[in-house]
């Protein structure tokens, strides 16, 4: 429940109106006012551990109103007699209230010296600064003991409470308090907007032998990473970078370049149809053009998917990623299965041999033999069929104008399924951009991300195609004569079917995994 300060006059009186007034006005810290508020009493305890004793310096900084409460005539000044009585009494009180325990055993403190000053505050009123030097008697060695400290003085009073600890002739380990005062012993209160006013009421530390360099230090826990779950550190670092800079042109260009890099890196993460692409390109007469087609298809689908999902997320909270992603995965899996089945049926239907008669290209009048020709065809009207213009080679993987060629539509479909599940990091880049009020920039970055992805995928596809071609060219070197042909025939016969089955299996796996998390 967001309750803005409930400012209201109470029945017939205006007590709580003024209540809010007192707090805010006295806390607003205009020039001259006590920075923490005119009615606070602030405590600082500086512990110095020596080899055989413990010294504590307690400083109490009292703001204007409590000063007047203690010294009703404070506005005109506090006379020496009153001040002396005050410091003697208050330091004696501090000495009896402060609890110094070594291994649980309380050690008494006595007052070594006391001092009080009245620094001026707001509206001509003084504040009070009391310093009490307390000390334990010389005793057995403190080394090896656990020291605990607390000062339960005026617990109801509001104010800054700090404790510091250092060793003088000993070392401190596992100290829950720092060695140096964050407020320069109540003279300069930090104006950190990102931390609560200090309210440390107790301290503990281990005393070890050493030269007196304070080794202790508090170990605050790592900040909760609740908001970056599911996203890798790279993307987290990237979005931090985007958020914390002003959007200048050079920085914008840098961000675009980094987005391309991020996209390329994520292209190598699991998903995005690389296995499918491999299966397709290796199992078929995959060409560079096919690789490019698949890569571009993945990227366009992916970018559109990210933009649509981003739009849906900002418009409605119903489209939470946890709910959308499994469905996308399921659809993707089902599409894969469908594509795989189509390919398999096509592969099983046609005779898996290089018979020209079964060739589908009506306008190709040639007959294809396995005996050497290296010409390329005129594919001008036939680019849709996308045999590509891969060099025909012979041998282990002969060129086949097998009818089970992939049309561009199939390639696009393959790419589509690969890009169907938007990468979380791209989504985060877009949503981060929208949340920071830079929607258009977020879109630009997503497109750049997609370009990076395309480049990487095309590179992968290219590598696959080249690799396959290299294998084709040199494979016969590795196979013994006789068996080579049989093996080659076997492979030619069954490889398309096998890769289609692989596609189906991948589709089943993706769908099953997605379905399990719906």
């Amino acid at each position: 429940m967001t309750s803005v300060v409930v400012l209201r006059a109470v029945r017939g009186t205006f007590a709580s109106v003024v209540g809010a007034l007192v707090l805010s006005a006295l806390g607003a810290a205009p020039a001259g006012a006590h920075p923490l508020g005119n009615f606070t009493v602030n405590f600082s305890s500086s512990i110095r551990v020596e080899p055989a004793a413990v010294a504590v310096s307690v400083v109490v900084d009292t703001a204007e109103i409590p000063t007047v409460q203690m010294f009703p005539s404070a506005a005109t000044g506090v006379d020496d007699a009153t001040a002396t009585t005050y410091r003697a009494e208050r330091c004696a009180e501090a000495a009896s209230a402060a609890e110094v325990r070594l291994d649980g055993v309380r050690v008494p403190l006595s007052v070594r010296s006391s001092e009080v000053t009245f620094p001026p505050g707001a509206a001509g009123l003084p504040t009070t600064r009391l310093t009490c030097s307390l000390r334990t008697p010389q005793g057995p060695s403190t080394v090896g003991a656990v020291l605990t400290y607390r000062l339960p003085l005026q617990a109801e009073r509001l104010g800054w409470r700090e404790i510091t600890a250092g060793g003088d002739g000993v070392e401190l380990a596992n100290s829950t308090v720092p060695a140096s005062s964050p407020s320069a012993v109540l003279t300069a209160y930090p104006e950190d907007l990102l931390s609560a006013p200090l309210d440390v009421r107790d301290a503990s530390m281990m005393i070890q032998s050493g030269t007196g360099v304070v080794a202790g230090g508090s170990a605050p826990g790592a900040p909760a990473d609740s908001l970056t779950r599911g996203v890798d550190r790279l993307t987290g670092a990237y979005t931090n970078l985007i958020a914390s800079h002003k959007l200048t042109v050079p920085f914008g260009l840098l961000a675009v370049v980094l987005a391309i890099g991020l996209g390329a890196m994520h292209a190598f993460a699991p998903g995005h149809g690389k296995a499918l692409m491999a299966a397709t390109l290796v199992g078929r007469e995959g060409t560079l053009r096919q690789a490019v087609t698949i890569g571009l298809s993945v990227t366009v689908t992916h970018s559109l998917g990210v933009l649509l999902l981003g739009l849906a997320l900002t418009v409605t909270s119903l489209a939470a990623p946890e709910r959308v992603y499994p469905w996308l995965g399921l659809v993707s899996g089902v599409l894969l299965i469908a594509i795989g089945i189509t390919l398999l049926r096509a592969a099983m239907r046609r005779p898996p041999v290089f018979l020209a008669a079964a060739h589908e290209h009506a306008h190709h009048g040639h007959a294809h033999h396995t005996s050497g020709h290296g010409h390329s065809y005129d594919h001008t009207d036939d680019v849709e069929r996308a045999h590509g213009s891969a060099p025909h080679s012979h041998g282990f993987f002969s060129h086949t104008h097998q009818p089970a060629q992939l049309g561009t539509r199939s390639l696009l479909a393959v790419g589509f399924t690969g890009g169907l599940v938007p990468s979380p990091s791209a989504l985060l880049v877009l949503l981060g951009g929208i949340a920071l009020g830079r929607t258009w920039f977020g879109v630009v970055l997503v497109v750049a991300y997609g370009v990076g992805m395309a480049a990487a995928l095309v590179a992968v596809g290219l590598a696959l195609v080249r690799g396959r071609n290299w294998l084709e060219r040199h494979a016969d070197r590795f196979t013994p004569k006789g068996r080579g042909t049989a093996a080659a025939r076997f492979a030619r016969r069954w490889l398309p079917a096998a890769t289609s089955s692989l596609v189906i299996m991948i589709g089943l796996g993706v769908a099953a995994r997605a379905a399990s998390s719906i």
Partner: protein
Amino acid sequence: MTIAVLGLGVALFSISGVLASPRDDLASPPALEATAPDNSTALLQQRIERLPGDYAAWSALGTAYLDEAAATANPAYYSKAEGAFERSLEIRPAENAAAVTGQAALAASRHDFRSALKLARVSQRFNAYSAANQAVLVDALVELGHYRRAEVELQRMVDLKPSVPASTRVSYYRELHGDIDGAREALQQADAFASRTNDKAFIDRYLGELAFSTGDLTSALEHYDRGLAAAPRNAALLAARAKAQMAAGKLAEGLDDYRTSTAMVPEPTVIADYAAALRAANRTTEAAQQDALTRTTYTLLRSSGSNVDLELSSFEAASGNGTAAVAAARREHRRRVSVHTEDALGWALHVAGEDEAALKHARAAERLSNTNAVFAYHRGMVEHSLGMKTAARQSLQRALRLNPHFSLAGSAEARRTLQRLNR
């Protein structure tokens, strides 16, 4: 046969490969940690450390600091809240509704209600659906005396988000208009909403004060005790209980509660009540000290730029300084005309001896309702000074009927005056 084997192998390979891969975190959200409401400030601070440009988080942090200030009465949180809202506006100066609402709330707490209204309206233009902004808007309108407009905005607030702050404001609005039963009902509804300890303590205080204002001391003390059981360090509850205890004749307990409350939070009206209580217990030196402290506190508040004229006029009137009281009351009356400023000006004029001028204002104070015992008492005393015996008798009787304990000094004075009138 070979096909089957090959197919099976491929199937096993791909399925295991797919299923054994690490799960995508976004597809399986991790278990939500149970975060206590207190963690929200810490979480926001951490978020801003990671994303310093997140202006919405800065505004939310400012609001969280205001909540902390209301809960802990620690004034340092007010300056932190102010800093957080300024930072948010630095990052995004245009259409930053939440930050503007925060600034409006801070202006209201400094009693600069005109600025609070202006800022709240600006924020309303950017975002008409913010219950938090409606809260500030309603407060500003009520304090400025625009009661009809306040009702419209209050209805809108309730429609947007029924909640504890909405219900407490409904209760106050009804009480201002004389519907005491409706006010009580609204608070009881709020009690049903309230889940946090601070909210329940809040509501207990208001229920107790409502009971007190109708003279029911027993229920009032019950509510205060219940509230303090849940929130023992609540200075406002202690002050309210002190008042009820003094009225019930428990002087020692009352003075003790006043002492604790003013030690925690030296609110000037409470200190003034403490002074009155000390006077009633015949501890006059201490009473004088507390009066001096009250004056010091008002001086500090004014020097820090806050508007304390309404409260100051009441204090000066109680101390018998008519001229100073009238000056302060006129200043405030020029700024805003609400039933409270009318009552303050009327009473100040009466203390200064200008009863003809006072009567108009004393009557105007009762234009919304005639169920406020203090207003009735003030009017009765003015009428008595003007020799309007019947009217005075009616007003004073009404005051004592509504709440026989409305003020330590005032109740006694009302009874004495009635006796004189009846002679």
